[in-house]
């Protein structure tokens, strides 16, 4: 028997207690809870007004005191208790209850306890009182006194909570429970804490519980009791009052798990661990102390948080007694076998150094020695991740947390808080915001102090612009000649400066860098990586530090151009930004024009105005015909102002102008007619309209048709290549701001003319809005942000693609889609044990790949992603990963992910009922091989005999596997469905195996490039998860078979099997020389073992 079978058998032999767990009912989510076997806890004196916290402490310390599993820790405002369902405090004087004989047959344990009983529990002398309640749970006290019950009063963990709404009690929560496992003794009192399983709003509520009067097993009555309570507000009001970053949502880490302590506690667990003995001695004061400490959110001071030192100091307890308890505790700790060290090391005994520091109250040393590894230590202050979470980066600066400190912790947080470990994951949104905040602070740490920033100089760029390489010596000569003719040295200089500034973005953007300073600050910096960068809302970098003062950049422009014109030029530049006092810039898409030569004509030359016509003959690479010459004509104007000569207009930057548009200053507007209906004003509708509406070019001013194709934008949008950063509007227009790679732009639609859309070149971002320039006649339009694109992050543009699908296919499809993505969370796409592509969730979340729609029919959606599978020798096979959705007759959608060799573009239709995906078999190649080669027939026997003679068993095994895969039909015994073509002819039949398992089997045996051929050859089809096959069979002529194996000495990585068939002599039946069959199989040794590159078969018919 195989090891796996033995293991599974052993599991079946485990103790009844474990097997009983398989019938466990869902547990309630609860921050604090206890197991049903709570009765092992010794009775304690019940006090009035016992708080939830006290109960927690009691049980934690109680259990700790009993040296049970020891991860139950008092932390700062958090208690970690595993797997407890309920807290119950029993009356110490409860007498045992004796059950009577069996008299009835109905078992109360099968009754839903949330169904209200017909008898009032008060009739049995049961009263319920809510001692205290908050948004998470309620403490109720259940008393029994008098009444007319006849047996044993019991109750379970089911309950309902009702809210008083409009004069009626409306059920808010129904907690199912079907075991009556707690007993209420006559004249007894039980006090319990029940968690609702969700947060309740303020309001008036009552909790309803059922009780049974159990006379004997099966003989009982049911009654209901209730207790009213009010919730006045949320628990977190006080806490959030002291949190400065109120924009942060709840982190979402469950306090059920240890990572919550990593997140919230500044200290190692052992410092926060208040032992039973200590606490019970200080019961009343301790309760008050706990309450006070709980009111301090995110404490960072030793004395503000709950720990041994603050406990000792605040309650005036001698350290000696604390230390005595601690040492005693340390000596008694034992750990269950198999507990990983990392899970308990934090509550190991204190070192002598630590105890000395604690004894001396040396806060700084304590902080150094005993701060949690997740916390940041500054002197005696210790800042937990929770503190960082709820505070702003200004707060960080104020307390001395540096960007370097954050940078050091961030990888640790990433490992701990986003689901690497069980139960530790922070909510996606919370983590995204937290990480963005931390990263923005890290980046801010790289910013250059203002006093180091350099002055940006026009002279530098002028020199560069007129270098021989950039401008050409002949052209410079021509220019100089014209400028000399002006007789105006100011304009001569200005002309060159204006040209240089207007063509700034045409050249290498590193021209904008203060290289010396940046090298000094960042070392060997790289664009957008080493130096400080600006991030967009998605966290993507869009501009980097230049090392120059922004004002010096603006001043440089204003020293050349008239002020308004300079402002407009800068606003129009797609690549410059300012952050603080520094100039930041991004790369831009060059127009890829190269000027061949210019012609100049001086149109006007007076004392206060000079106009120069410039005709540039360019090569335009955008036309993809480099021989094309395109003529650009500009009239460049210079005027004399009170500050001296300035350029009033310089046309060279109007790169969209063509020769026939000299006077058309709307040249940069693209006017498109829309075919479909106008849209509303909702952001998504605007996007939907912009990217999915059908548009056609109605009018154009440019020869660049490809650039105007909105098909491109739709695809790019769907595939996440275009990142939409916001929806803007003025009274007149909507604008969709987007970036595409390093460039940006806006799609602009006039409200008065919703059938026309403009695509502007670029946009600069300002602090609270955008400035866009739609056409030359519009000197910049300032617009305020209307909406962020909902849920859109970098690379997540496919979200909109998804939404499009959701719109088409409805809510059930959306649920199915999201469920599939969620399911795919922890699974990548694997082949041969290697990950070849990330999860679909990552694909959609991070845009790691570009999926596209395969099939879109009424009842089928397939999203495909091409990728390459590379074997160890580097041979790549193009494969497709696929998400598929198939609509069932009842409107539900089935879904799954597949890796597919041949995406089903065949147009075949399903006939019959396919096997549900969850009932498909995984193809087991080795099992199949074992069966085939144990067959009792002559061919197999002969083949086995031959194979036994070969020493290399690995090759033999691969040969056997290949033989099976090449010769055995895959049709299942019971053909559930068939694939048929348009004529109804059956093309393939159901195999009952998952497509992926079969394909993996092929990849284990054959070289990957051969697999594609084989799959096509074998006529395999995928439908859902299932492999459909043409039903191949192999026939061999009646002949004498001889087998040959050869592994050439000079090629040890090659092995060849040959099968020769010789015709039989009709009379004697003996072998003749006539060869009627010849086939071979070639195997190669690669680093992953032997793989077959060819396996010949004699005759195969479908």
């Amino acid at each position, binding site marked *: 028997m195989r090891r*796996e079978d033995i293991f599974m058998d052993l599991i079946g032999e*485990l103790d009844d207690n474990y*097997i*009983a767990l398989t019938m466990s009912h869902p*547990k309630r989510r609860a921050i604090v809870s206890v197991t049903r076997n709570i009765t092992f806890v010794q009775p304690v004196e019940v006090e009035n007004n016992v708080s939830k916290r006290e109960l927690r402490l009691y049980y934690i310390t109680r259990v700790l005191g009993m040296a049970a599993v020891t991860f139950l820790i008092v932390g700062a405002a958090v208690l970690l208790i595993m797997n407890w369902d309920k807290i119950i405090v029993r009356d110490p004087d409860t007498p045992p209850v004796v059950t009577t004989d069996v008299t009835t047959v109905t078992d109360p344990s099968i009754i839903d306890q949330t169904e209200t009983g017909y008898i009032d529990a008060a009739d049995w002398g049961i009263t319920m009182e809510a001692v205290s309640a908050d948004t998470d749970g309620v403490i109720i006290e259940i008393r029994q006194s008098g009444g007319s019950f006849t047996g044993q009063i019991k109750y379970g963990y089911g309950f309902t909570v009702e809210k008083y709404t409009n004069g009626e009690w409306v059920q808010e929560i129904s907690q199912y429970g079907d075991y009556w496992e707690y007993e209420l003794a006559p004249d007894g009192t039980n006090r319990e804490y029940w968690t609702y399983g969700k947060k309740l709003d303020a309001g008036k509520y009552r909790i309803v519980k059922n009780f049974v009067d159990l006379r004997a097993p099966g003989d009982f009555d049911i009654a209901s009791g209730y207790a009213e309570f009010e919730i006045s507000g949320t628990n977190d009001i006080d806490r959030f009052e002291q949190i400065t970053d109120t924009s942060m949502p709840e982190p979402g880490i469950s306090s059920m798990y240890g990572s919550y302590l990593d997140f919230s506690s500044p200290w190692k667990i052992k410092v926060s661990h208040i032992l039973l003995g200590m606490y019970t001695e200080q019961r009343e004061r301790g309760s008050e102390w706990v309450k006070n400490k709980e009111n301090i959110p995110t404490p960072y001071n030793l004395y503000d948080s709950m720990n041994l030192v603050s406990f000792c100091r605040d309650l005036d307890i001698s350290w000696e007694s604390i230390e005595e308890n601690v040492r005693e505790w340390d000596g008694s700790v034992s750990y269950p076998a*198999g507990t990983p060290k990392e899970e308990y090391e934090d509550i190991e005994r204190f070192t002598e150094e630590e105890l000395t520091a604690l004894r001396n109250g040396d806060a700084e040393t304590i902080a150094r020695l005993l701060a949690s590894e997740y916390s940041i230590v500054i002197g005696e202050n210790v800042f937990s991740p929770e503190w960082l979470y709820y505070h702003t980066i200004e707060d960080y600066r104020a307390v001395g947390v540096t960007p370097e400190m954050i940078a050091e912790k961030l990888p640790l947080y990433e490992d701990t808080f986003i689901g690497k470990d069980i139960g530790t994951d922070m909510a996606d949104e919370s983590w995204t915001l937290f990480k963005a905040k931390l990263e923005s602070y890290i980046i801010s740490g790289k910013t250059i102090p203002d006093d180091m920033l350099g002055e940006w100089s026009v002279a530098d760029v002028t020199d560069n612009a007129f270098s021989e390489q950039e401008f050409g010596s002949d052209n410079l000569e021509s220019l100089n000649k014209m400028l000399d003719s002006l007789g105006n040295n100011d304009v001569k200089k200005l002309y060159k400066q204006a040209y240089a500034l207007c063509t700034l973005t045409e050249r290498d953007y590193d021209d904008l860098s203060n290289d010396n300073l940046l090298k000094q600050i960042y070392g060997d910096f790289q664009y957008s990586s080493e130096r400080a960068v600006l991030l967009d809302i998605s966290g993507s970098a869009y501009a980097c530090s230049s090392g120059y003062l922004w004002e010096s950049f603006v001043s440089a422009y204003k020293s050349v151009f008239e002020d308004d014109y300079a402002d407009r030029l800068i606003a129009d530049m797609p690549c410059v930004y300012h952050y603080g006092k520094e100039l930041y810039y991004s790369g831009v898409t060059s127009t890829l024009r190269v000027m061949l030569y210019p012609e100049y004509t001086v149109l006007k030359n007076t004392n206060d105005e000079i106009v120069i016509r410039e005709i540039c003959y360019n090569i335009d690479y955008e036309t993809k015909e480099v021989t094309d010459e395109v003529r650009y004509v500009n009239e460049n104007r210079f005027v004399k102002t009170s500050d001296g000569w300035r350029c009033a207009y310089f046309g060279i930057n109007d790169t969209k102008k063509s020769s026939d548009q000299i006077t058309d200053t709307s040249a940069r507007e693209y006017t498109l007619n829309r075919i479909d209906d106008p849209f509303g004003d909702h952001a998504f509708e605007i996007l939907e309209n912009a990217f999915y509406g059908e548009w056609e070019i109605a009018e154009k001013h440019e020869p660049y048709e490809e650039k105007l194709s909105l098909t491109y934008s739709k695809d790019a949008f769907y595939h996440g290549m275009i990142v939409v950063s916001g929806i803007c509007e003025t009274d007149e227009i909507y604008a969709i701001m987007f970036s595409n790679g390093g460039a940006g732009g806006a799609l602009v639609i006039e409200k008065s003319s919703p059938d026309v859309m403009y695509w502007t070149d670029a946009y600069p971002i300002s602090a609270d809005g955008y400035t866009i320039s739609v056409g030359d006649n519009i000197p910049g339009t300032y617009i305020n942000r209307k909406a962020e694109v909902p849920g859109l992050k970098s690379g997540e543009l496919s979200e909109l693609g998804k939404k499009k699908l959701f719109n088409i296919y409805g809510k059930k499809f959306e649920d199915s889609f999201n469920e599939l993505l969620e399911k795919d969370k922890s699974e990548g796409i694997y082949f041969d044990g290697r990950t070849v592509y990330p999860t679909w969730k990552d694909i959609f979340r991070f845009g790691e790949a570009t999926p596209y729609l395969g099939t879109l029919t009424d009842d089928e959606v397939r999203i495909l992603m091409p990728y390459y599978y590379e074997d160890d020798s580097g041979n790549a096979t193009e494969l497709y990963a696929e998400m598929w959705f198939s609509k069932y007759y009842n409107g539900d959608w089935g879904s799954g992910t597949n890796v597919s060799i041949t995406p089903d573009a065949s147009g075949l239709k399903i006939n019959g009922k396919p096997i549900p995906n969850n009932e498909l078999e*995984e193809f087991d190649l080795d099992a199949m091989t074992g069966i085939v080669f144990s067959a009792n027939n002559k061919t197999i026997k002969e083949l086995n005999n031959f194979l036994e003679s070969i020493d290399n068993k690995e090759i033999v095994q691969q040969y056997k596997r290949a033989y099976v895969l090449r010769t055995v039909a895959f049709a299942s015994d019971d053909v559930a469905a068939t694939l048929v073509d348009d004529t109804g002819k059956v093309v393939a039949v159901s195999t009952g195996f998952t497509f992926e398992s079969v394909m993996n089997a092929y990849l284990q045996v054959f070289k990957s490039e051969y697999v594609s051929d084989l799959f096509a050859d074998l006529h395999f089809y995928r439908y859902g998860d299932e492999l459909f096959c043409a039903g191949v069979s192999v026939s061999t002529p009646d002949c004498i078979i001889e087998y040959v194996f050869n592994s050439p000495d000079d090629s040890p990585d090659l092995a060849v099997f040959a099968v020769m068939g010789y015709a039989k002599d009709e009379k004697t039946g003996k072998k003749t020389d006539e060869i009627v069959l010849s086939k071979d199989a070639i195997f190669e040794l690669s680093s992953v073992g032997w793989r077959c590159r060819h396996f010949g078969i004699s005759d195969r018919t479908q």
Partner: protein
Amino acid sequence: MNDEKIIELYFARSENAITETDKKYGESCRKTAYSILGSHEDSEECTNDTYLKVWDVIPPQRPTKLGAFVMRILRNLAIDLLRHRTAFKSGGGYCSVGYDEIAECLPSSESVESTADRNAVRKAIEKYLSSLPRDKKIMFMKRYFSCCTYAEIAEGLNMTEGKVKMSLQRMREKLREHLEKEGIVI
């Protein structure tokens, strides 16, 4: 009806014993059988076989936990049936429990020196399970006893499927380490 009463019915050879067993445990039985066998027809057959087996062994046996007793019989019958039914196609794989997954639970033979008998292995597994919190015990048993899917376990425990999967993976690794530490070879 409580377990004790049902067992009394078995002892009294009352056919109501099976009816009551079915009332109380039928749903769990069918669910578990379906998880293993993946077929409603098979799970129904398996459940019925289980009741017959229970009928055969009570008396003389008097199980202290009838539910666990029934589930154990059912599960073992289902596994046997699965192995028999799938011998040709997949060589006896477990419905939702993959070979790789089980292999992760088992110690690698190179890393241990001694061999333990079946009883010792079972005890070692129980020892490991005893160190787990209840949720994890349930996860483990639902997966490897009842062959539940991750989704079913997740739903039962109010967790995400990813958490269950991750948790089980860690448990398998820990169990393997534990078995290796105990010197177990299977």
